[in-house]
């Protein structure tokens, strides 16, 4: 989903940077707040950041004959709410822009909106909408949607910048490259997310309880049931 360095027209690049900046600043505050107020959850915060770092480095083959990568932003959005991912996702994008020439500084704002803002919020939205569903279903859908929404956003940004043949036609063309390729990857990412959260149910139940991912402290049973399962 990276828009390569220098490809967005300067006005678009500047506009997306302006749009992204408050989200990233707010995200930085959210990270500081988690670190300060929930010291026990720091290890999970690191894990959520590392998860995005790993996932966005792995390019997977897809049905269209091209390759793309997962985003990994859904996990942090579920555990810590989306603002945290606005910072963590942007850090990953910055690393890739500076060291890998993947994405870019001029396109950082647009890429951050797609991967670190829209993806996490879309995933989190689905997670909340499915409130009554089993946790695994919620996690799968949230992770897959966060992944797909990122690529739909990138396609939209490109269609806005390069509306050859009209916005809709351009949008369809970019979606044809990005979204179709992304579908199997979104499914795989959803499954991986379920497995990670499943592991955390056994290993980090107190933190998940503090973060409100599993039932409230008065009704939830203690970690013993996790040990037996």
């Amino acid at each position, binding site marked *: 989903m990276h828009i390569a360095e220098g490809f967005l027209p300067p006005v678009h690049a500047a506009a997306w940077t302006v749009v992204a900046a408050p989200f990233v600043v707010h995200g930085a505050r959210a990270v500081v707040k988690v670190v300060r107020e929930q010291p026990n959850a720091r290890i999970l915060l690191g894990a959520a950041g590392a998860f995005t770092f790993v996932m966005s480095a792995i390019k997977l083959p897809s049905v269209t004959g091209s390759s793309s990568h997962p985003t990994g932003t859904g996990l942090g959005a579920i555990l810590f709410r989306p603002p945290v991912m606005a910072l963590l996702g942007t850090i990953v994008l910055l690393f890739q822009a500076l060291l*890998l020439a993947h994405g*870019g500084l001029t396109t950082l704002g647009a890429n951050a909106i797609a991967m670190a803002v829209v993806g996490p919020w879309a995933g989190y939205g689905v997670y909340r909408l499915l409130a009554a569903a089993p946790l695994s279903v919620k996690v799968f859908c949230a992770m897959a949607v966060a992944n797909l929404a990122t690529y739909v956003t990138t396609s939209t940004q490109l269609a806005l910048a390069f509306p050859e043949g009209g916005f809709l036609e351009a949008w369809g063309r970019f979606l044809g490259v990005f979204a179709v390729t992304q579908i199997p990857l979104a499914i795989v990412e959803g499954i991986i997310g379920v*497995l990670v959260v499943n592991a955390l149910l056994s290993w980090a139940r107190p933190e998940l309880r503090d973060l409100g991912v599993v039932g409230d402290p008065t009704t939830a049973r203690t970690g013993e049931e996790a040990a037996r399962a």
Partner: protein
Amino acid sequence: MRETRPLSKGVVWALLALAALVVAIALVLGARAAAGEEEPFGGTDAAVTEQIEEDGHEPWFEPIIAPAGGEIESGLFALQAGLGGIVLGYAFGVLRERRLRGDGDVDGAGDMDRDG
């Protein structure tokens, strides 16, 4: 609280198999779709960049540091995955170790020191 119980081992293995199956199907269908192409399974990012350039748009800014060649680039991607994997593995290791010691409800910081 039925849904917050961890999945059974069978379901976990089934999910792993399903993920592998999806990748395998994507690989087979993708290989068919990419048949005859110069570089099968090229990145979508690059594909879109090519399209935009074909439409006559030129980039107006260059990356400050560009990896000198594809080998170095893939090495840096591996480094990114490796660094993330180390942090992720460490975090899960700490949590799992704490769980196995059966003191899941105490502050994790102490365990980290012990495991140092």
